């Protein structure tokens, strides 16, 4: 045994040194072509070539894929630059692989959560300020803030989503409630939730995470960070008040988390009738249509908290890679894709809300029943965009899922210290 062990060690040593030598030779392959071109620094000069573009999207389904494909195809035929749309199986992973290989997609969906990481390692082209000013000023200012990192406006928001209260109208009527009873305050919400709770139905069923309960924080005048992400405010009195309110609903039994009633998310619980109300975004329309077409529902604004109206907003942008050989064409494509016509097309195809203010009235005409979602863009707040924020939010979500039996202050204190660590 000892002999074989020695041999193994020797072999290992030989293999290791050989590979080290190989790796040493190989180390040249990166340094020759990477002299820090592009990256966060080069915002003025765009690369230009005849290379075709690839567009990587994280699609919600065929409707979205086909809509983006046809929009990109029509741009291709008018501009003469070839472009292919690739629906990703796992957007984060495929993006990361592309950046590491220095062969990224030219244009891609980018979430607010992924922006800081890629912006910090120089993978992204900060092209926001090179957009035509009439388009740039047309974006909702809060969205521009979402995609501003380190003082630079990185990418054009492609859509916006907000949270509102979704009500099952049949259950609403069955509980003897009328249009006059739509909750205006936190107390109203507690009252109607209690009235709607009976048998297998809970008044309010939401996903137990910051991305939903954060709406209460905003209504109480708080949020995890300030709007510029320069100050952590997770343990503020407003946030404690918001979570305490949610906790009181949980303890009263008039609110439950989706996971606790055996549903994957609020929309599923709502569609299955496990909850009479839920807090979800405008994406719920698609799943109600396809999975629960017989459920009648209405979208109303969330109640006002101690500090008035408030909700959370979510958004994605069209990222352009710093390593793209044809940024000029990519920018033109993005201008087209964020234009009013294209955004309204996308809305019709898969229900997203346009990121530009000039499309608002057309959108409301098209979807009158969903206007509360779009109205919320006036007062909605974003989620924190700090580098490495994702694990902190995941950790917070895990604790919020236990809110019923955990002190809100404890939850928020740990979020505070975890977020504070990201600011340094």
């Amino acid at each position, binding site marked *: 045994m000892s002999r074989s062990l020695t041999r193994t060690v020797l072999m290992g040593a030989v*293999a290791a040194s050989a590979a080290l030598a190989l*790796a040493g030779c190989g180390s040249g392959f*990166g340094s020759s072509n990477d*002299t820090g071109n592009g990256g966060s620094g080069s915002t003025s000069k765009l690369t230009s070539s005849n290379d075709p573009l690839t567009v990587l999207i994280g699609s919600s389904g065929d409707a979205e894929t086909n809509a983006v494909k046809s929009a990109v195809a029509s741009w291709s035929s008018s501009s003469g630059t070839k472009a292919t749309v690739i629906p990703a199986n796992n957007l984060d*992973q495929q993006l990361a692989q592309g950046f*590491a290989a220095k062969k990224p997609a030219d244009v891609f969906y980018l979430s607010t959560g992924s922006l800081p*990481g890629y912006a910090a*390692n120089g993978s992204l082209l900060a092209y926001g300020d090179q957009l035509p000013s009439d388009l740039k000023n047309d974006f909702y200012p809060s969205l521009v803030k979402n995609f501003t990192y380190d003082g630079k406006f990185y990418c054009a928001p492609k859509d916006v989503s907000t949270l509102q209260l979704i009500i099952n109208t049949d259950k609403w009527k069955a509980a003897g409630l009328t249009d006059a009873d739509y909750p205006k305050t936190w107390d109203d919400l507690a009252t109607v939730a209690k009235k709607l709770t009976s048998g297998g139905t809970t008044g309010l069923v939401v996903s137990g995470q910051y991305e939903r309960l954060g709406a209460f924080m905003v209504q109480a005048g708080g949020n995890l960070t300030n709007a510029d992400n320069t100050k952590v405010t997770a343990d503020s009195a407003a946030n404690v008040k918001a979570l305490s309110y949610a906790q009181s609903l949980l303890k009263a039994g008039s609110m439950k988390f989706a996971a606790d009633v*055996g549903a994957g998310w609020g929309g599923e619980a709502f569609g299955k009738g496990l909850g009479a109300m839920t807090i979800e975004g405008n994406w719920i329309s698609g799943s109600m249509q396809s999975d629960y077409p017989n459920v009648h529902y209405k979208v109303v604004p969330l109640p006002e908290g101690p500090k008035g109206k408030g909700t959370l907003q979510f958004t994605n942008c069209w990222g352009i890679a710093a390593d793209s050989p044809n940024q000029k064409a990519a920018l033109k494509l993005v201008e087209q894709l964020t234009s009013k016509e294209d955004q309204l097309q996308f809305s019709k195809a898969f229900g997203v809300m346009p990121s530009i203010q000039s499309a608002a009235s057309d959108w409301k005409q098209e979807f009158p029943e969903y206007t509360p979602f779009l109205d919320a863009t006036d007062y909605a707040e974003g989620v924190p965009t700090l580098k490495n924020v994702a694990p902190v939010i995941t*950790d917070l979500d895990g604790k919020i899922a236990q809110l019923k039996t955990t002190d809100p202050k404890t939850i928020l204190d740990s979020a505070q210290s975890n977020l504070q660590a990201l600011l340094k």
Partner: protein
Amino acid sequence: MTTVATRRTDGVRRGSIRKGETASSWLFTAPVLVLLGLFLVIPILMALWVSFSDWGGRGSPFSAGVNFVGLKNYEAITSGGGLAEQNFGQSLRNNLWYVVLVVPIQTVVALVLASLVNNQRLKGRGFFRTAFYFPSVTSSVAITVLWLFLFNTTGAINKVLSWLGVHGPNWFNDPQGVLHAILGAFGVTSGPGALVSHGFLGVSWWDWLAGPSWAMSALILLAVFTTSGTFMLLFLAALQNLSGDLQEAAMVDGATSWERFTRITLPQLRPTLFTVITLGLIGCWQVFDQVYVATDGGPDGTTLTPAFLSYQASLINQDWGQGAAIAFILFVIIIVFTLIQRWVLRERAVSKRRRLNPPPVKVAGLPAGEAER
């Protein structure tokens, strides 16, 4: 010129055949060596470098802008009290419970199944063999999805439990440790101060001792369900290779079937046992796909595993250095566990005491050499 000629004749004279063999053996192994080097050794060394660098995920890790940062990445996950350390500690805790429960259970279950299926008197052995092996050939993703349905809070498992008067847990959403839950049933809801206030890797000792969460328990059952069949096959092959002579000799000596199993069959299965436990250990420490499909590390991080955390840190959070560092710590853990297990299962000389007081069951017919060992 002359020297070369001399050397050549020299070589031919000394090891005429051997020399040709060496050259051709290198020639024949070269393709594999190149492939292994290219796709295994170099990537591993690149990852090792990444774990000591500040590479951010753009371009080559060997490019000019990437700096050596020493042990910074390792420090971030093993000290400092931040979330990275907590998550890493928690992932180790989760995976340790997973290993401690899955490896022994699946080994025993596999051995029992193999013995049953090996029984000559069993009717329909072919059917049972296929049935037990079936979960192993099914895609782990498919089985995980099935598990999600079965262990849903309103799913089949809880339904069955309710017939028995048991209110089943909310499996995939309950972060409470099983041992904590049992203690809780006896009214113990918080641990002694010494355990709560002290800890290791950002996780208090009380939480280290919490046991696997309900979600992790479901994954443990899943692992036992899927891998026992594979290892059953290994044991079955070994069992079928054993000669019947020893068994017969023991029967003549009046050994019971249990004695024959523990004293004759089991010792002969030692090499297979080593294989099964080693494969089990390595597989368990690398558990990834079930977590990826079923839980994403939740609820409250109680199904995080180092392998999944490494993936998350690198590909999702662009913290490639930390991701690589986690992978290398995991590598060391696996090596250490394998060495320990190899040491435990080593061939031992029969102790002096045993030789002086032979065990009650004497096995006649053992060849002299066998008995000496």
